[in-house]
């Protein structure tokens, strides 16, 4: 491997990420399964970095899952996204920060469509106006939330309480990065580092002391694939895709997987449970799984956030061994306790649990 070769490519694929004043749009999957991650993102930006992030409670799903599931037509989704832009315009924001990679892909697809087919933009304006009476300005930039963390990765590193390092051996943790397909495979120029060698997560991992694993199936889809997952009979495809990735990364004995897409994080976590239940196979040492973390969770851990506050106890593959390796002391007694002291439900059959 020649690092200078990758640097060459990364230099070619850089995008403009604004410094401040973001209009934040949430992710359906992330706010359902990783609600703590979005919370952590907002906290990091607002509290640790002192940025202005605006959320409008009236913003909705982008309908991307419906769109890729063939139930929402393109005209509809354009109008829904235009409404988001209208909300941003009304609030005076020109930079969109997107939590979800599916949404991010939808936004890039729509913006590119408008660029090449201005008549669709005109039509969308008309549709939106007829439906809601709103108008909008096309945003100046769109960033995925991971782009923003990437931009401030060194700042976060400077404030780090923990690093992606095994405190016992002093060796960097071996980290698998997984980029959502819709982040840059459709339009490489919208992704940091392009499509073949995206830099967005690698940049974070390296800044925070970890070692990135480049394994053969690195580019492969997690298996979500919308239709593959949504139709139960097709889930075997979805599961197979994840398994292919696990088998490919297994020889490297990774300490954790970081994903920038909510769907990927969910599937790579949940499918480890399913594979263990179906075939009794796990991909870590001694029957352990490989923890799958969102980049917000990793950034939060680096900054010293409490993993239980970020909801990491609700992953199928638990991170206790990983936390121990990083030297993070998470109070086991608080793991399933709410802030008010009441007990939270405790999931069964957790891996590494």
């Amino acid at each position, binding site marked *: 491997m020649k690092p200078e070769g*990758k640097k060459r490519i990364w230099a070619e694929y850089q995008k403009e990420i604004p410094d401040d004043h973001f209009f934040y749009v949430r992710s359906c999957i992330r706010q359902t399964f990783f609600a703590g991650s979005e919370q952590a993102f907002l906290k990091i930006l607002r509290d640790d970095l002192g940025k202005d992030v605006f959320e409008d409670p009236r913003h909705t799903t982008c309908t991307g899952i419906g769109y890729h599931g063939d139930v929402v037509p393109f005209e509809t989704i354009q109008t829904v996204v235009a409404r988001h832009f209208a909300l941003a315009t009304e609030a005076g924001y020109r930079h969109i920060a997107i939590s979800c990679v599916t949404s991010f892909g939808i936004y890039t697809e729509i913006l590119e469509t408008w660029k090449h087919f201005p008549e669709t933009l005109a039509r969308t304006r008309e549709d939106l106006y007829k439906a809601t009476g709103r108008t909008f300005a096309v945003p100046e930039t769109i960033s995925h939330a991971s782009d923003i963390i990437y931009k401030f990765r060194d700042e976060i590193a400077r404030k780090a309480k923990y690093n992606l390092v095994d405190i016992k051996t002093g060796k960097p943790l071996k980290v698998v990065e997984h980029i959502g397909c819709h982040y840059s495979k459709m339009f490489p120029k919208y992704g940091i580092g392009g499509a073949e060698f995206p830099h967005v997560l690698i940049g974070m991992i390296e800044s925070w002391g970890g070692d990135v694993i480049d394994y*053969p199936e690195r580019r492969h889809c997690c298996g979500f694939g919308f239709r593959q997952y949504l139709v139960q009979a097709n889930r075997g495809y979805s599961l197979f895709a994840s398994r292919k990735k696990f088998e490919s990364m297994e020889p490297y004995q990774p300490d954790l997987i970081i994903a920038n897409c909510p769907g990927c994080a969910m599937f790579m976590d949940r499918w480890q449970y399913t594979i263990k239940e179906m075939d009794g196979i796990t991909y870590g040492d001694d029957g352990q799984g490989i923890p799958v973390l969102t980049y917000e969770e990793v950034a939060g851990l680096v900054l010293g956030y409490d993993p239980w506050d970020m909801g990491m106890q609700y992953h199928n593959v638990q991170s206790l061994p990983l936390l121990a390796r990083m030297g993070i002391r998470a109070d086991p007694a608080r793991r399933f306790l709410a802030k008010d002291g009441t007990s939270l439900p405790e999931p069964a059959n957790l891996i590494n649990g």
Partner: protein
Amino acid sequence: MKEKTKHVIVAGGGVAGMEAAGSLAEMGIRVTLVEKGEDPGGHLLQWHALFPGRRPAEEVRKYLRKRIAHENINVITRTTVEKVRHHGHEIIADLSGGTQERADALIVATGFDLFDAHRKEEYGYGIYDNVITSADLEEMFNRKRVVRTDGSVPSRIGFIHCVGSRDEKVNNNHCSKVCCVSAVKQAIEVRKLLPECEVFCFYMDMRMFGPYYEELYRESQEVHNVNYIRGKVSEASVNINNRLVIKVEDTLAGRPLKMELDLMVLMVGMEMSKPGARLAETSGLSTGINRFLESADHHYGSNRSGVAGIFYAGTCTAPMNITDTISHSRAAVEETVRYLGSK
């Protein structure tokens, strides 16, 4: 009064330029041969052996060197022709470095550039060890040592055809013609050098257009046991043993195929050379959709530029093998001499 000796500038000192210069000089015409490199010879300088007979490239280099060792030829190296314009019947060429050269005619023989394999990011050239280009492999042949970066001997080599050719993703729809037969030739050479090494060619079509090319292809299968898999490699990665893992569709089986390789050779195609493209732009020479120089007529005027006194020779007009380049170059000389006589 004795007629003034005619003077022709040849832009580019590769195969086409050298042949043109030699032919012109033989006819008593004064030639200025402008070459961008240290020495004339062009891409042929790197080549070890030539298809289809696998003769040493040095034999052809020797021929060309002899061709330009003529009192009528003045070779200017480390120089390019930047712009050409007419001044009456005279042609004025601006050379890099600021000098000017005046002549009665000019032959453009700026040749081709090899496709920059970095642009096919998915193959990992310059990123993964043991991904090399066909030109790199030729250098290895020159040293008679085909090895991996760690010095070990490869046990399986894959040749990836059409890298930078027939691929709209890199803006090249044209076929570079010679890469197929080059791959066959190199595959045979690998098998001869490393008899234990398995060799695979990943191709979309095998375009064996020249005499004895198809025979060479057959020989590679029959005698040298070279394997051919029809399919375009989509991506390459490395595994924990630092072996390359490639993905391709075996289109004949209709199934995806995964294979580990010790060494991956990218058969890089031909593109319009950068100095050639610059010259075309500054001097108003038209180029085609393949970005090569567009000749005045596709069938019977492939040496004519459409501008009086400017002629084309060789691969600045389209990908060609050496045989065709030399023929094309001689034809360019014929056109030039006819033009000089008519003035």
